[in-house]
């Protein structure tokens, strides 16, 4: 009886810790969102400062951006499926759906890097004018977040393979999925404010 009670206490302790950690992670996401808010504001102030150089409509490819968007939206869906599996402690499905998400993330990142490489190759670097500075830093910061997300995903999955799914790892996966959805939302704003707006 005493033993049982102790176990219950332990579970309560664990559940409360998870609850707090998730809440804290939400606050962290809001702070990150505010950093993006600054970058969006800066882009909105500076996107006309092309100094006579080409603007967004000449430099961006809407087709590539749309592809990136679709890839990222799909990855948001797959990470959702992965989390459903994680809540059921279904290890193989977790690995499969996170694997798909990881691949989509890599695809997104390679398209973005290709876009950047082409721009830089043509001489449109971030040193040229304020518009290009703000474009590269805004989109690049998002890309950096995606990179960190992928790094996080791979290490967490390595531990899932090693240790199997436990409640602590599921908590980490839940945070990761929040992070991933968050990046998706930020991307939708990038797609709208940076890419779509350049063509209207």
């Amino acid at each position, binding site marked *: 009886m005493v033993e049982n009670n102790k176990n219950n206490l332990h579970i309560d302790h664990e559940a409360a810790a998870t609850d*707090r*950690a998730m809440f*804290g992670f939400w606050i962290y996401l809001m*702070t990150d969102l505010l*950093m993006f808010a600054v970058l969006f504001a800066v882009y909105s102030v500076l996107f006309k400062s092309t100094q006579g150089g080409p603007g967004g409509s000449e430099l961006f490819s809407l087709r590539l951006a749309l592809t990136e968007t679709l890839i990222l939206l799909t990855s948001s869906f797959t990470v959702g499926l992965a989390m459903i599996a994680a809540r059921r402690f279904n290890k193989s499905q977790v690995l499969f759906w996170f694997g798909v998400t990881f691949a989509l993330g890599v695809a997104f990142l390679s398209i973005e890097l290709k876009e950047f490489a082409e721009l830089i190759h043509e001489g449109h670097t971030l040193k040229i004018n*304020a518009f290009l500075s703000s474009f590269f*830093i805004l989109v690049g910061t998002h890309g950096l977040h995606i990179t960190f997300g992928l790094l996080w995903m791979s290490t967490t999955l390595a531990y899932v393979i090693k240790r199997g799914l*436990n409640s602590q790892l599921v908590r980490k996966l839940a945070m990761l999925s929040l992070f991933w959805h968050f990046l998706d939302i930020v991307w939708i704003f990038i797609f709208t404010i940076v890419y779509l707006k350049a063509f209207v």
Partner: protein
Amino acid sequence: MKEILIGKLSKQALPHEWFTIGGSVAFLALALLIIIVITRKKRWKWLWNDWLTSVDPKKIGIMYFIVGGFMLIRGGLDAIMIWLQQALGASNVPGLTGEAAHGYLSADHFQQIFTAHGNIMVFFVAMAFVFGLINYIVPLQIGARDLASPFMNTLGFWLFVGGVLMVNMFFLLGGEYAATGWLAVAPLSEKAFSPGVGVDYWIWSLQISGIGTTLGAINFIMTILKMRAPGMTLLKMPLFTWGSLCSMLMAVTIFPLLTATLFLLFFDRYLGTHFFTIMGGGNQMMYTNLIWMWGHPEVYVLILPAFGVFSEVVSVFSRKAIASYKSAVLGMIGVSSLALSVWLHHFFTMGASANVNAFFGLMTMLIAIPTSVLVFNWIATMYKGRIRFDTPMLWFLGFVAVFAMGGISGVMLAVPPIDFQLHNSLFLVAHFHSTVIGGVLFGIFCALAYWFPKLTGIKLNERIGRKAFWFWIVGFCMSFIPMYLLGLMGATRRLDHYDSSTGWQPLFILMFIGGLVIATGAVLQLAQILASFIQKKKLYDRTGGDPWDGRSLEWSTASPPQFYNFTSIPIVTSRDAYLQMKLKGLTKPKFEDIHVPKNTAAGIYISIFGFLIGFAFVWEIVWLAVASVIGIIVVFIVRGFDEHSEYTISSHEVQNLEQERTKKDMPLFSKNNNDTDEEMGVWDLTKYLAFFFSDIIRKKLWHKW
């Protein structure tokens, strides 16, 4: 090759001017002294295990105080140097032949000093003390054993220490700090106008400590919102906790803006982007806007916990519940929400339209309303209270006087037409110091006097404490009332020299003397702490943790509290929870199993790597930056997947620990043979120290060390 290895570092970076050599020697000597003492006393293990790697918020809080105290001395010396320069800085003084010297500092050096003074006082003194206080007191007040994330807490502290090291690093390498003013406004802070490493040191010291602040703030919000004792609803929280909550909510809102803005400035300087440059279509006023969107609310982040302190103190020392608790809470919420929409009043002269200026002027004036509500609350609390005038209460009364002055001048500055005249004048500087010294610093001193018995189990020496208070208050008026006058007479801020025909010099000299009086007050405070420890048997708090007849839960614990704070989590039924318990009669403690977080050095490692990233970018050593980023990632992975970060102590062990503590305390309680002695005065302390040191010299006691 050399450039790849050590970047821009060269022999010229080594100290070669009097102040860099002096600073380096002073810091290295201090470090050496500490190292020698610890080695001789064989205390390294103790230091590492009991303090540096500790995740106990009480210990981290005390470490914040120690670092903040050192930085207060460092920033105070800057202030004295500024005042001395201004006192001497009159040219063409009649009677002196030729062109009299422009003080004793070069213009560039003077600029670096006031920049460093501002940064150190705001970031590394005020923030340090505020975070230290919240760390120590908030968990105790809400009946929690720890913070929500103990690891994030040590990480935040050590990042703060990394920032402290970075801000002083220029003494050792580089020889120059930013000469741009404490907010480094663009384009002055751009590479074109500040090519040296000073601004880079500025960026990275703020960046590293700022990220630590964000982490700390997230942690405190989690703690306050999720870990309160059962029964403690939001409207039953003590007001210091309320002040901390409002302050931390603001901190998480604004510090990301600072981080982003500093990164943009860094990119401008390092990658050659054009956010705030003059060339390439950058927008300089955008920097000013962004930095003040952080900078203005920042002072409210500092003052709200101080408001909380005053609310506690005035209630305890008037032996009354706070008058109209709910309006005090609303006042704090009002201040913190309005504070986010006033930043433009720092640059009414930017040339925004009259409507924009009018909006921000009105918002600024409005903020005086919730602030006054709080002040009236405190005064109403004193009304018909049985007031005790111990030092905490003196600091509170001093605050009311000085802060009122600062508040009223603030409302004056909020009117755009007046601001056009007073912008960039010493009037503004005087206003700012009235609020920050009168509000934040007095609040911190008040808090230290109030909670010192909780921190150490010893009450502070009142005799010297009172003297220190009066030196502070008189010194403050002597140095800042002339500053208001000078501002009205047209003296601009950041003035290193002026013509004697302006007639300003007497006032500047008065300010300098006032500065010395303040410094005396600060020395007396150190003497006060020293004297309290010397007479610790006499000043030992015999009530067992509740010397002031306190009202909130922190007074229900031992002094200093055990590392788990409470043997059993208290159940709260009303505001002033501990007072209620005392009225109902205290119950015997119950014992239960306690989960305790293990110590960790991960915060230290991450902070070292963070410091190295900053250092690498200051000197453009790419490999070091890359290596440090990898280092941080590795530490995070190792720490993040450590599943054994806690251990449990059983109720039986807790009971033993409690018994041990009572046994240890008992003889101290009963010893009252010294009670007839008077408290030490300054003179007694001087005599004591003279005997102490002559004893050491006479008996060659240093051999024992």
